[in-house]
């Protein structure tokens, strides 16, 4: 059992670190496909990436049920760390989660297992935070939609299956989930409004 004293620390300066992290995520969400750096990324319990830890400290609290994938749940320290720093309830039912932390996107459940919001309240949906190997070394994708001038390119390492699911997610608009892809201390957002196609396809 890890004691509180042994848990990795949170932000050194809560106010400015949370603000700069939020602005990076807001910028990413407003400009899908753009890679934004989280300057306040911090060492976190494995397997959380530094930017994921910063996003957790910035956006999670007692009002936001968190769902963790099996690769995260395995590490009990992560749950303790989230509880201690964010007071966020960890839930097993993905469909009620405000946020989902996914360390192993290859084995994540289908997107429609998460909260998709209703037509009346499409905002009551899950924001998925996916840890990926790279934001630049994957197969080229073409993005279009609000926040993008014309089209933009993204080469994050996401599976073809996930791209196919995201196409269905786009069809649900205004319902649907929003994705934040993280690699190290960098983030890219794919809100539900973004259309994603394999380049040339």
């Amino acid at each position: 059992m890890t004691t509180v004293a042994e848990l990795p620390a949170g932000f050194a300066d809560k106010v400015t670190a949370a603000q700069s992290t939020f602005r990076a995520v807001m910028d990413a969400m407003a400009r899908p496909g753009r890679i934004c750096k989280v300057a306040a990324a911090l060492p976190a319990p494995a397997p959380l990436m530094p930017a994921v830890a910063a996003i957790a400290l910035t956006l999670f609290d007692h009002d936001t049920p968190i769902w963790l994938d099996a690769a995260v749940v395995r590490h009990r320290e992560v749950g303790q760390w989230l509880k201690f720093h964010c007071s966020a309830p960890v839930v097993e039912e993905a469909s009620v989660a405000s946020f989902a932390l996914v360390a192993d996107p290859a084995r994540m459940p289908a997107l429609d297992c998460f909260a998709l919001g209703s037509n009346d309240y499409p905002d009551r949906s899950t924001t998925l935070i996916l840890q990926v190997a790279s934001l630049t070394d994957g197969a080229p994708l073409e993005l279009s939609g609000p926040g993008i001038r014309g089209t933009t390119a993204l080469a994050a390492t996401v599976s073809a299956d996930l791209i196919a699911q995201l196409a269905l997610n786009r069809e649900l608009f205004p319902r649907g989930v929003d994705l934040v892809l993280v690699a190290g201390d960098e983030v890219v957002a794919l809100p539900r409004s973004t259309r994603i196609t394999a380049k040339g396809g």
Partner: protein
Amino acid sequence: MNAPTYNFAYLDEGTKRMIRRAILKAIAIPGYQVPFASREMPMPYGWGTGGVQVTAAILGPQDVLKVIDQGSDDTTNAISIRKFFAKTAGVATTTRTEEASVIQTRHRIPEAPLHAGQVLVYQVPIPEPLRYLEPRETETRRMHALGEYGLMHVKLYEDIAKFGHIATAYAYPVKVAGRYVMDPSPTPKFDNPKMNDCEALQLFGAGREKRIYAIPPYTQVVSLDFEDHPFTRYRQDAPCALCGAEDSYLDEIVTDDQGSRMFVCSDTDYCETRQRDGHLGSESAPNKEHGHG
């Protein structure tokens, strides 16, 4: 003596987290009004509490803040909000549109084109464009859910039937990204085209009504109209009396009780910049000091 009494930018961190989550949803669903737990602010509702809360949630120490009220940097509302953030967040403030990273506005969009590094925060009194047509929140929510906006077109049609043209002059309804009909706040319809394909992120905060909504950059924003009665901008047919601008939105100023009046730019920064650049209007005094900020 000067121990900090407030958190940075006044709001506590828990409130900022809640507002930040609402902002992210608002950006992901352009034009949809996200409910949020609006706080009591040290100013009355109607003075921009929604805009102030959005600004407080996004503002950082490196930001440069501009606040305008009806285009002006130096009216009571603009000055008090600018001073509020200078005091509680210690941020730099400016009146120059191009220098600002965050611009909070009441009822105008600056004349100078906004750029990609900027965020425009609107103060919104009534966020629901359908509210005066249908008072029940349950019904308007259902109309948005179904994308059923026939009622709004009936309203515009009734304008035409009564007045011969669409008489709605401000808070002119727009459709965002082909889905949600949105109230652009009481900006003159002259400003509507500036929202379309704008490089800057636009955020809207309604404090009393507890709603936040957004238009991401490069998003299609269309003013509702009819094929045979297309949307038109309206501008007083006169040049600015101080800078001679023929393309800016004008305020009408009554100068005496004999019916005399003059028209001047409502955007004071735009007007002052033009005067500095040597543009003159009919009322310009040759030796007048430039600027008043």
